[in-house]
């Protein structure tokens, strides 16, 4: 007859054998894989966010702030056109052209008349 106590004793020898079973021991390769996983996860969690591309120089940063090379090109063309128009049409509005603004002893008054866009230029020789 097998009693409850005997069953436990018999099973205990099997449990002892199971605890000592080398099949239940992890391989060195598994330990290495798990440590590699740990390192990868640790790196992913602590590494700063990757920087896309190399750091921009001051000119590139300015161009980027203005919206890229295309808008900057348009801006340059508009600036040059303004200068050209300024010089080209200066004789229409200034007697003697730009010389009247730069000659010594000349005071130039530019005044706006009410009700229109006409400009009256008055010069006074000093």
């Amino acid at each position, binding site marked *: 007859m097998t009693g409850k106590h005997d069953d436990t004793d018999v099973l205990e020898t099997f449990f002892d054998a199971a605890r000592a079973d080398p099949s239940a021991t992890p391989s060195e390769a598994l330990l290495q894989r798990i440590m590699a*996983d740990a390192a990868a996860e640790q790196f992913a969690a602590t590494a700063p966010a990757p920087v896309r591309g190399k750091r921009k120089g001051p000119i590139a940063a300015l161009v980027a702030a203005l919206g890229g090379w295309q808008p900057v090109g348009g801006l340059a063309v508009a600036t040059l056109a303004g200068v050209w128009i300024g010089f080209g049409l200066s004789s229409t509005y200034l007697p003697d052209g730009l010389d009247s603004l730069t000659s010594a002893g000349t005071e130039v008054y530019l005044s706006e008349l009410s009700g229109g866009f006409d400009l009256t230029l008055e010069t006074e020789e000093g």
Partner: protein
Amino acid sequence: MPYDARDDDPEAAPDEALLVLYANGDADAARVLTLRLTPQVFGHAYRLLSDRAEAEDVTQEAMLRLWKQAPDWRQGEAKVTTWLYRVTANLCTDRLRRRRGQALDSVAEPEDETASAADQIQARTRAEALQAALATLPDRQREAVILRHIEGLGNPEIAGIMGIGVEAVESLVARGKRGLTAALQGRKDELGYTE
């Protein structure tokens, strides 16, 4: 204090403290945790699955989940080992469900061993016989018996791992042991024990 314990001897630091150190970038903590916890996880997975390759996959997955969980680990809520046993059992249960329908006699046969000593052979044979007998138990009984009698955990911790009460654990263990005894009964001559 976790940091004091670690400064003195990382091997002596509790699992929870090492996990915090790991989350803070301490590579040594990962090494100590791996060497300490992997044998427990793998042994449990192997005994539940009776398959080393599958047990290795489950162990790597369970440990990976621990590494991912580390930054959000809330100290004091659960022991690391309790959490790991639970994750391992769940992963094993998923695999056992996928296997369902497979014949019980497909459990791996004992491998040939080159051990010369008779007692080593007998111990090995008994371990294999127990493994085969465990495979015949219902999943929950098997898990409870392994945790109680092979992993050596107390009933309250087993209850926490399995999400049941202590009395239910005692019942599962008792029924599991009766099932093991019955399964091993027919092999008593082969296994070298008498009643």
